């Protein structure tokens, strides 16, 4: 990025009209990926001068135990419902979860989920890191996930969405293929990096369950309706050029007993639609990169 410039120059402007047509495998119009955040929040983390980890003096009992619910109860509820409706997970992983609760990570791996890094802990922020420190967390992430799952991470969602001006360049330098940190589009886009290539894959704040429940205060039924409307619109627009819908989740939110039933119904609806491509993040990035080698037989997309 252009550090300290008004325009960070993260990407080129690319209007949502007359774009190159993208057709997802099998002729699908909307790639739907589900991104469970498997996180570990520390009870007594050190303080980063740029951001306080907890609202309350440690231990913040409600804040900590609210999130601990994922790793004792709601992860499995969320994962079972996803599997029942054919959605694999692409996991935003606090990699230290591999040490604390390897049972949770192993459960995702056994279901065939893909793992990418969400930092070491969701209570350790990148703000203020120098380049050596930031390299250390990327290398730690690659090593830790490889040891725990055999997978080589391909993507990144910054811990607690905290970045430095170097983050995206470093991800590309380490050979990562995608970032979930930019919210500027409903299709994949090229990120401007100093070396290599980095794709921005649509994640989402607006249909993230955290926004649904703790920002907008929706009921489980309202959130499920919102997911269906999001899908219907993106699947329809995808006739012109394939779109991407991400469903970012947290077990402790979506896996609450009053929300999981309506969520399961939303997944059932989306999975049953012939326009839906149930995919993992890496598969979506690969299909998008391949479009240059396998140009669509259809005419240029118009809207």
């Amino acid at each position, binding site marked *: 990025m252009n550090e300290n410039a008004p325009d960070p120059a993260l990407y080129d402007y690319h209007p949502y009209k007359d774009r190159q047509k993208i057709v997802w495998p099998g002729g699908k119009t909307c790639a739907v990926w589900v991104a469970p955040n498997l996180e570990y929040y520390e009870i007594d983390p050190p303080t980063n001068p740029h951001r306080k980890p907890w609202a309350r003096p440690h231990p913040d009992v409600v804040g900590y135990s609210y999130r601990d619910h994922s790793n004792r109860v709601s992860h*499995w509820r969320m994962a079972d419902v996803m599997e029942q409706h054919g959605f694999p997970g692409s996991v935003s992983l606090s990699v230290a979860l591999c040490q604390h609760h390897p049972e949770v990570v192993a459960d995702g791996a056994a279901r065939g989920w893909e793992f990418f890094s969400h930092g070491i802990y969701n209570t*350790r922020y990148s703000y203020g890191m120098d380049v050596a420190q930031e390299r250390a967390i990327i290398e730690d992430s690659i090593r830790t996930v490889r040891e725990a799952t055999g997978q080589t991470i391909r993507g990144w969602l910054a811990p607690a969405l905290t970045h430095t001006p170097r983050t995206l360049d470093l991800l590309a330098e380490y050979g990562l293929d995608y970032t979930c940190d930019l919210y500027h589009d409903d299709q994949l886009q090229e990120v401007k990096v100093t070396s290599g290539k980095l794709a921005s894959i649509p994640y989402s704040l607006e249909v993230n369950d955290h926004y649904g429940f703790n920002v907008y205060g929706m009921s489980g039924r309202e959130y499920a309706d919102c997911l269906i409307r999001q899908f219907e619109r993106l699947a329809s627009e995808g006739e012109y050029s394939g779109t991407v819908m991400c469903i970012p989740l947290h077990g402790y939110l979506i896996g609450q007993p*009053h929300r999981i039933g309506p969520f399961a119904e939303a997944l059932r609806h989306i999975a049953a639609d012939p326009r839906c491509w149930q995919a993992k993040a890496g598969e979506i990035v690969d299909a998008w990169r391949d479009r240059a080698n396998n140009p669509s037989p259809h005419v240029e997309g118009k809207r």
Partner: protein
Amino acid sequence: MSLPDSYLDYSRRRKGYDHDLYRWSNIHTREPVRWPGDASVAVFVCVSLEWFPILPVDEPFRAPGHMVTPYPDYRHYTARDYGNRVGVFRMLEAFARAGVTVSFAVNALVAERYPELIDTVKAGGHEIIAHSTDMNGTIDSSLSESDERALVGDALNRLEAATGVKPEGWLSVARSQSWRTADLLKEHGLAYCCDWVNDELPWRFANGLINLPLSVDLSDRQIVAVQQHSAEAWAQMMRDAFDWLAAESVAQSSARVLPMQLTPYIMGQPFRIDALQTLLVELAARKEAWFASGNAIVKSWAAQS
């Protein structure tokens, strides 16, 4: 501002938690739990009886629901007191009509100030658990050990003196604890607390104290006051939760708890109380439901765990 390299030290990065307060376990693979009558869902209704002094204190912190305007805040003082004068009696009637037993988390000062209310709670066969001295009696780690010990002791002694009942359970104001709270509660002879929201069954701290989780997300304060849903929408969420837990219980052959925290000045309003009463009558008629006090749930669980 740069970060010291120690920011990348992870001294508690290890198997299990980064603390020693309690141990990890997965609810779905634990030894099965059963409730009396083979009910699959224990419904734990917990009503908070709160007294907010018109002179709030901000140390350790100002409790949710406390005074807002410059002194004298008649608006919030009286609107909260409405719950203890009117709203709670509507709830007590709803409990009687549904034939359910619940727990009341009571500020010691409420018990001292409103003996007629306590008599009605006791006559209904409900449990009384401790809920600090009043809504200024907050706890966090900024409180000294001696002050926290004095607060817990004072709350328990005064509650017992005013009600004639020695409480077995504790709910902290805003569920906020210090590093020491679990040990202090144990030291004062309590059997359980309801502050940690990480599970849907009781569990034990390392010191033997039991935690009976009382969900924030399923509370009327969160759903109605914070998220601003109607009482009918709240009731629908409770039905959805009950149905899910009942089905999960069958699938996993192990019982569950549905926690339902109620606040008299919120759910005891005339336009909301029918939604509560209708829900309670409906759920109480379900064969899967066991409406029980916290104490009964904890005792049943402890006998098999």
